[in-house]
């Protein structure tokens, strides 16, 4: 379950679950995170999950590296498969040259037709491996090998809010406009930063995600509903 535990300064611990980005290593991260949450250990300030690692930030006045280590030593006995319950999200995307400025480039580089890109991107069920880079940005994988692509060597100066991008074997969505290097193939009209939610972001690490291709009309309809605050989120959380 745990590959390595190391100190990260005086008030944090880094737990690593493997040396490769894949579903299994990331599920271990999510599992260890919920294990520690359920134990309600006093003095834990934050649990920050990434692809294959979890950072435990603690208050050294309330707990210690050694104490956390001994709590974690009980984790082997737990059954990972029965514990993980992830939310399932379906995300509408308009794959179109107006919303996906890198579609043409990707079609050339990967020798694919637009319909094939859409087919390949909407086919898999992705896992949100981690959040970061921008507040609310979900790193998801793994994308189909035929869609594997490099980041732009010079990042684009402005990537629009909601842009859906590819980088290596991963896919992600920009929660806000920002400079960025991912290859943009479409746009999601649903806002990722949502003040009305308890944790104000659409995605959580560990979520299962599928993409659904939508028409320009549907895209504009959702945009309008988002503007009027009438969009029903239950369409997303199936």
């Amino acid at each position, binding site marked *: 379950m745990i590959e390595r535990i*190391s*100190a*990260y*300064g*005086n008030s*944090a611990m*880094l737990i*690593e679950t493997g*040396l*490769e*980005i894949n579903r299994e290593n990331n599920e271990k991260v999510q599992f260890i995170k919920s294990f520690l949450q359920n134990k309600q250990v006093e003095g834990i*300030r*934050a*649990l*920050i*999950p*990434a*692809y*294959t*690692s*979890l*950072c435990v*930030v603690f208050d050294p006045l309330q707990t210690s590296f050694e104490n956390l280590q001994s709590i974690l030593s009980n984790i082997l006995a737990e059954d990972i498969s029965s514990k993980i319950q992830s939310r399932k999200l379906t995300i509408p995307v308009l794959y179109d040259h107006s919303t996906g400025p890198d579609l043409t480039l990707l079609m050339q580089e990967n020798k694919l037709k637009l319909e094939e890109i859409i087919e390949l991107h909407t086919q898999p069920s992705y896992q949100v491996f*981690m*959040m*970061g*880079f*921008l*507040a*609310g*940005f979900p*790193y998801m994988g793994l994308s189909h090998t035929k869609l594997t692509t490099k980041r732009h060597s010079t990042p684009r100066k402005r990537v629009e809010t909601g842009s859906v991008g590819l980088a290596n074997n991963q896919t992600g969505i920009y929660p806000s406009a920002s400079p960025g290097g991912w290859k943009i193939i479409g746009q999601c009209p649903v806002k990722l930063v949502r003040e009305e939610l308890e*944790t*104000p*972001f659409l995605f*959580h*690490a560990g979520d299962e995600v599928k993409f659904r291709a939508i028409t320009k009309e549907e895209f504009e309809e959702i945009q309008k509903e988002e503007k009027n605050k009438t969009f029903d989120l239950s369409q997303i959380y199936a």
Partner: protein
Amino acid sequence: MHKPIAQILKAGLFTSIQGSPSFELVEFGVPLTGPMDSYSAQKANKLVGNPLQSPLLELTLTGPQIKFLRDCKIALCGAHFECFLDEKLIYTNELIEIPKGSVLSFGTCIAGCRAYLAFEGGLLKSINTNFIPGQLIKGDLLLAAPVTTSSLEKIKSIALEETVMDKNEIIVQAGPDISLFDSELMQQLKKISFRVDAVSNRMAYVLHGADIDFFPDSFISSPTLPGTIQLTPSGQLNVLMRDCQTVGGYPRIGILDEDMMNCLAQKKPGDDVRLIWN
């Protein structure tokens, strides 16, 4: 609605409101934020009788110009600026009574890089008409929380560390990825004097001087905390600061404690620092 306590007449290089760092949303990629030099910020709050983490102004190298719209009490700590209330020179590390209508201006930054201006009661975080997240601009209005029966006496008794402005030795602890680096490389790092690059900001300090052409083949992005020293493929060191991203793809070779982060936060572009590996 409270009446504004002050207005920004000139923004200065980078003036922002900083409060208590928050871990609450860090797992979603929201930076912790907070004062770059937490001791100086706490000291300013202590002088005006605020809880030590109360939101206050952080000023960087070129100070702002501020007009006070009400009578109030302030304190200025951290970097040593030439500082004037109307025409009169005022001093850091003191409680200052401000009459309504007066204007605070800053001249040369003599030592350090960041100063903290605390208002009695503490500032409220998000109120400005022209608010760009983090950075205040000309015309912004500042709101202060109402002053409650002061806990000043209690707060006065708290002992605080000092940030040393002219210290250039930064003590580094081993980071979680130090095992990726061999002892020869570490020996090399110990001999180098680094220079603070001009792009350094609240997200990261960039240190030049290392000429290291070592970078692990594959490094998987992993959580990062303020204080972390990353080695980048170009051989420079990034010291992550309070607004840093929450995950990063460079190996974490070292980490600074709170004391050392405060110390580094007072270095300005062009300053030289030595890293002492603990």
